């Protein structure tokens, strides 16, 4: 976790665990929203931060997962949390299929292609592709998740579901980062030619990380669908991909603590700015610029160890 010390991590964990006891439903729900974006941003961080692949279409994978879960739940009555692995799988396989022919494209070309994939998916959802996505209406009536017979309904309940998943994600990704796989992603980001020249199958890792990041985004989509009970294409717009992209870069590409911090800022700040009413997005834009200028490497740059 880079420069974060153990006491800090412990303090943060304790604080997050007891936070709902002191907060009202609105604030808990803001934290839920932050948690979902943190989850998505962590998954994008694998692709964009760790492997350095410009992906500005992450919402497509998120949508794949959310729709898979929603369709399975509303059509086949499969409990929503059971769909978690399957929506991850669908999103991951979809990512592999689309990334396969384009993943070798460089920087900005890959960027526009991922934007394109995101838009194609959104347009397909709007146009009710295969007659299963509900068009612009989306899918509604998704049942509340149940965990060991307990129905998750209140924001406080979702809080523990979502942030529990975030904690698990950080735990697993942290291990991944310190493994052969994680290092291979860093080699890719730093110097693709040297990576290949050291015996790393770069094409394989590019695909693998797209698949893994997308699968995780897909699972986040399931949680989103469970929480909202209704999903529609506008929740997966290009703007969502842009927000995720900003979170990762602002946080410091490749640093999970930074990504977490940036999720709090990018999702939390507009809520704090609510008092500014119609000027709140203006303030938000300004803050993004200033933060980037003050900390050009990101809030918490990807280490020196």
């Amino acid at each position, binding site marked *: 976790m880079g420069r974060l010390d153990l006491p800090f991590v412990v303090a943060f964990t304790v604080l997050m665990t007891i936070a709902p006891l002191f907060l009202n439903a609105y604030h808990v729900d803001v934290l839920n929203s932050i948690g979902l974006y943190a989850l998505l941003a962590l998954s994008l961080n694998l692709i964009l931060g760790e492997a350095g692949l410009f992906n500005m279409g992450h919402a497509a994978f998120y949508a794949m997962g959310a729709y898979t879960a929603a369709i399975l739940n509303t059509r086949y009555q499969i409990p929503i949390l059971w769909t978690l692995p399957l929506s991850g799988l669908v999103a991951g396989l979809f990512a592999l299929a689309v990334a396969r022919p384009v993943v070798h494209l460089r920087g900005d070309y890959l960027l526009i292609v991922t934007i394109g994939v995101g838009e194609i998916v959104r347009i397909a959802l709007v146009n009710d592709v295969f007659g299963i996505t509900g068009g612009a209406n989306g899918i509604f009536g998704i049942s509340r998740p149940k965990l060991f017979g307990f129905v998750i309904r209140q924001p406080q309940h979702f809080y523990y579901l979502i942030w529990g998943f975030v904690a698990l994600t950080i735990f697993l990704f942290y291990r991944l980062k310190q493994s052969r796989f994680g290092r291979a992603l860093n080699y890719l980001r730093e110097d693709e030619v040297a990576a290949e020249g050291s015996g790393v199958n770069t094409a394989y890792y590019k695909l693998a990380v797209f698949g893994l990041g997308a699968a995780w985004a897909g699972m986040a989509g399931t949680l989103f669908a469970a929480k909202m009970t209704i999903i529609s294409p506008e929740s997966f717009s290009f703007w969502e991909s842009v927000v995720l992209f900003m979170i990762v870069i602002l946080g410091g590409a490749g640093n999970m603590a930074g990504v977490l911090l940036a999720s709090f800022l990018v999702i939390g700040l507009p809520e704090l700015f609510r008092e500014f009413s119609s000027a709140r997005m203006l303030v938000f834009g300004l803050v993004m610029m200033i933060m980037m200028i003050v900390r050009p490497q990101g809030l918490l740059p990807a280490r*020196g160890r």
Partner: protein
Amino acid sequence: MDLLTLHHLTKTFGGLTAVKEVSFTVEKGAVVGLIGPNGAGKTTVFNLITGHYRPNQGDMVFDGVSLSDLRTHRIIALGIARTFQNIRLFQRLTALENVLAGRHYRMHSGILSAMLRLPAQRREEQEATDRALQELEFVGLGSQALTMARNLAYGDQRRLEIARALATEPRLLILDEPAGGMNEQETEALIGLIGRIQQRGVTILLIEHDMRLVMRACEKLVVLEYGGKIAEGPPEQVRHDPKVIEAYLGAEDEP
């Protein structure tokens, strides 16, 4: 016995022929130097061997296997490792992580075993780290293991690249101007290092402009000019070859 054989290798870029009908062999256990004036196509030959470029014609055979259609990481896995003329380290990673890149294809654990941190994965990581530290020690960077690559001195960066290449356990090591940018003492140390690498049973093919190094370290020289081979043989013989002398006249950048 020949470890690597090049047969009539040709590579063109657009209308320019960078390498023309080049053939030579690298004998097992030898140190072979590839020399020639700037722009003679030396680095291109290396890039062909390691699969960064595809030859237009000809073939390369390494220990009985043709390299022509293989991707780079497959070629590395066969036992060829290289360094780059303009140092290509993973700048924002530590020296240790750089060397671990060389261990990569020798390891097997994937996403799941890393996430679950299975015993086999942990053992593998430990072994790889040990081996990487040994290689750092071997090239004299043992104390710099946790330094970020971009913070190393220039000569140290060159040696780190060699350590990374050695970590792949190559049978053939290809060095592209290993003494480039080094001072006299560093070059001297490098000659020693090359000797020790050879003692490990690794065959070496190198490009170098520093003629003292070439003459001392190499058992055989191959001379290129304008993409074609003009001479091949032991250093003493090549040195007196009139074609070589002619090629180096005026183009000579060594005193």
